[in-house]
């Protein structure tokens, strides 16, 4: 689906705070903030007018507020891991960026209250807090598990925890929560909390591992995938991954338009560096 809600705007940076390994950045975006839903993302051009970086950078929306003192706001959690995101996190209040939003699919919200488990890896946890608030406001019980390689890489702001009934942390090095990986604790959390749906966001390997668990328990898994994107608006075809449709046919779909939120059980994982056999047009 091509979004008809997206707009290209000049967004003013309101604040930029370091939180652990990440930056929490707030932008004033005007009325378009009301169009953003959990799971949607923004695409920002980086490096300024004479930049040698020609591609847009995509960031999941951490939260959006329709009306603040500064009008509509979107908040992002940015990991300064590449040249573009380092440029972005070096900006100061009142700097202006060229932003396109809101883009992509959003997390589906069940019509009936359900028991939901939200799973985030690293800064992938960002869109889950807005989702938690929304689910809670619809009467859902929300449990959350966040994992990362080390404590500083877990993004779990205080205010974000208000909407969750339980929060479990895992780190590879044991510096916070349980030593190990998210998938080590998933079966127990699913069973104990009688989870009916899993929402997730994080590295592709993690999403694949979660899908293996949710498939075993036969519960829904809505995941926000992280494919490398060049444009964010569906025109470059670089962000594709194989997804099997209702008709049983696997197609290379754009994660910026048919995603980032996808049904985990429909994604053909393990497709890096090869097109799965039988894919449409292969």
């Amino acid at each position, binding site marked *: 689906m091509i979004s008809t809600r997206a707009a290209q705007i000049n967004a003013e940076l309101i604040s930029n705070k370091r939180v652990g390994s990440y930056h929490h950045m707030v932008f004033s975006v005007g009325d378009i903030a009301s169009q953003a839903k959990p799971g949607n993302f923004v695409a920002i051009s980086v490096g300024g007018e004479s930049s040698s970086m020609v591609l847009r950078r995509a960031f999941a929306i951490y939260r959006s507020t329709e009306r603040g003192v500064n009008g509509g706001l979107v908040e992002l959690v940015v990991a300064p891991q590449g040249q573009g995101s380092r440029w972005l996190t070096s900006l100061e209040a009142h700097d202006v960026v060229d932003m396109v939003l809101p883009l992509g699919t959003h997390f589906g919200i069940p019509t009936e209250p359900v028991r939901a488990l939200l799973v985030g890896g690293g800064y992938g946890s960002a869109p889950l807090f807005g989702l938690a608030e929304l689910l809670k406001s619809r009467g859902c019980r929300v449990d959350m598990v966040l994992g990362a390689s080390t404590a500083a890489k877990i993004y779990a702001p205080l205010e974000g925890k208000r909407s969750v009934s339980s929060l479990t942390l895992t780190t590879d090095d044991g510096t916070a929560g349980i030593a190990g990986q998210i998938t080590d604790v998933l079966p127990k959390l699913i069973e104990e909390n009688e989870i009916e749906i899993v929402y997730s966001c994080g590295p592709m390997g993690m999403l694949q591992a979660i899908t293996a668990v949710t498939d075993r328990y036969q519960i829904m898994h809505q995941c926000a995938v992280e494919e490398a994107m060049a444009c964010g608006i569906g025109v470059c*075809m670089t962000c*594709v991954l194989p997804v099997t449709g209702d008709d049983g046919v696997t197609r290379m779909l754009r994660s910026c338009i048919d995603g980032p939120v996808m049904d985990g059980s429909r994604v053909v994982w393990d497709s*890096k560096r090869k097109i799965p056999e039988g894919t449409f047009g292969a």
Partner: protein
Amino acid sequence: MTFSFAADLAGAKLPNPILTASGCAGSGKELSQFFKLSEIGAVVTKSIMIKPRSGRATPRMAETPSGMLNSIGLQGPGVDYFLENDIPWLAANGARTIVSIAGETVEDYAVLARRMRNLPGVVGLEVNISCPNVENRGMVFSCHPETARAAIEAVRRNIGGELPIIAKLSPDVTDILGIAREVSNAGADGVALINTLLGMVIDTNLMLPKLAQKTGGLSGPAIRPVAVRAVYQVRAALPQLPILGMGGITNGRDAFEFILAGASAVSIGTATFGNPTAVIKVRDELSAILQERGFDSLSDAIGFAHREVQA
């Protein structure tokens, strides 16, 4: 005297000389949320092939200094779907369309050209004989005079005279002028210069080529001087052959460079990825620059850099 921005691209009459580049504008729908497609000279479609194609495995993109590599591999739904869905939609939305076609055999080009007859809103045909992404390097038609000629002749035989035929050439040859001459003799009404240049990036963490396909096509501002040179060379030798110029255009100044070198119109590709409204920006800036520099019309500026200057 009012300024005339109208363009004539090998017989295609356009309100302005700003086009999208093939493979860089989706189906048109994606960009139409940001501007009306009728506001630009024409939409150039992705290269259409006979059958659906999944394209290449990922990663199929790598950002490079002032550019990018891609190995999309002509992912697309095939000509039947395209004619049923994309063409009517583009026409209904007021776009002037230039269809890009790509084949794996000479016969493919003939079949595709035949299917382009009498389509609503279609004002020209770009014949992609230069995509470097195909598996077999020998398949790059535009790298050899004989195969370049054969592909264009096949198109000519099937649609010649009905639509302007623009042959899109690869810069990955020692003598692009020779190829331009060959396709012109074979009946091309114009040439599109340039397609991407073959390149590679090695991921130094993985110590492997970054793209699954290993190599990819380089585009963006990094290739602009190569493109301007190609346009200038072809214009100098074949002044009557209309040129659609492209390669790294991001603003009006860049487009002006191509016009001065001899392009009748320009395509914007990679810049759209960084800025969805890049084509509108280029259009407005180029129009302003031409008027500032005292040109009464776009056509007066075409090839202006070729003039003799007194010492």
